């Protein structure tokens, strides 16, 4: 033992952690926003699509869900730019990766949500003379969103934790800040204690807030 906790150096570099936390949240919010669009479009397409389209969407979902996130991050950042003659910075690359990643999980969430909308509601929509388009946007979609809210919150919290993987391509988010302080000050235990607390407080704070939103919009 003989390790003495000394948090002074952590507080001196706290801007690295605070800025990192903000960036982590930004990455998570951007990625889930794009992921929701991907998920909604593909799930809507899936429920009405033919066999070929279903197979393609299914392949995308299965592929992403069965490959480690860190490999996808490397693939998009180191593999694609040279092959496709593209150029983008690390944060952009990571947001693109995490969006495609979350999109695959959200397709499944929205697909089962769409199927969970009670038949009777759609029939009722038909009975009062709504067009198929209106039935979708005014009946099926709103109900599906309310049904899937809890799963959406869980996905968001886990994406927030997944942003830590951005540190492997030197995106200065929270885990990267932790490593920077680890290697530059060697206050190792202290920095990870502080960072653990920051992830926990933010994660559970978000979860609590999202649960309130869910309760407000719960399907009764």
């Amino acid at each position: 033992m003989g390790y003495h906790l000394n948090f002074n150096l952590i507080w001196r570099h706290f801007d690295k952690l605070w800025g990192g936390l903000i960036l982590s949240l930004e990455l998570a919010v951007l990625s889930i926003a794009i992921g929701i669009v991907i998920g909604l479009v593909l799930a809507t397409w899936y429920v009405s699509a033919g066999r070929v389209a279903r197979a393609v969407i299914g392949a995308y979902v299965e592929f992403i869900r069965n490959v480690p996130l860190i490999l996808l991050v490397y693939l998009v950042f180191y593999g694609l730019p040279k092959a496709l003659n593209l150029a983008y910075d690390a944060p952009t690359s990571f947001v693109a990766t995490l969006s495609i990643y979350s999109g695959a999980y959200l397709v499944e969430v929205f697909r089962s949500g769409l199927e969970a909308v009670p038949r009777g509601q759609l029939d009722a929509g038909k009975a009062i003379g709504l067009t198929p388009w209106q039935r979708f946007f005014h009946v099926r979609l709103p109900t599906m969103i309310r049904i899937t809210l809890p799963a959406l919150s869980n996905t968001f919290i886990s994406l927030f934790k997944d942003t830590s993987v951005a540190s492997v391509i030197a995106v200065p988010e929270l885990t990267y800040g932790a490593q920077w302080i680890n290697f530059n000050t060697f206050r190792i235990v202290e920095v990870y204690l502080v960072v653990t607390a920051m992830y926990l407080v933010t994660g559970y704070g978000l979860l609590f807030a999202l649960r309130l939103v869910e309760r407000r919009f719960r399907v009764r």
Partner: protein
Amino acid sequence: MIGQILYALPFLWHGFLITLAVSGLVVVISLVVGVALGVGLVYGPLPLRLAVRIFSDTIRGIPILVLIFFVYYGLPAIGLQLDAFAAAVLALTLFKVAQVVEYVRGAIASIPAGQAEAAKAIGLTFAARLRYVIFPQATRRFLPPFVNGVTDAVKGSALVSLLGVTDLMHAINQVIGRTYDALPLYLLGAVIYFLVNYALSSLSRRLERRYAFIRE
């Protein structure tokens, strides 16, 4: 591209075995420890229940990557020397234990209270109730999510490459360090991970179908 892949395969094979070893160790150890703690969480005395609850919520609330760095860099600082492989397995196991604890809690909670009450009514002891009534039914609820979670362990094991453990992920990066052509190798790696995990998730789907109902 084919030539590169053939060149890489022998290097990747060893890494693949390390990936399997890390995942296998994590799954087996966390199954044993997680079931014990999970039963403790449901039936244990209050201090034990609290301790397991805090452990599980804390571990599941932070990124695995932070946990891995904490264990690898933090434990030597307080005087506990661990090599990269052991640190990686320890960190991933801690994470998996927390998951298994929740599967066990969920599985036991899903058994109707009437089952335990009926067992009590016919005079079974606590141990006999668990052994003959609760566990046989809870196992069926526990297995599908657990087997499904094995793919998480395989995917999570790719993070140990960051500690310099030469698993599949690290082996891929080493080959790229020599060939300077990233895309074919990352695609190959993705296919290998996909095949392993797809096989595992198909297995879990079959288990789920088989155990979808509770027989007599």
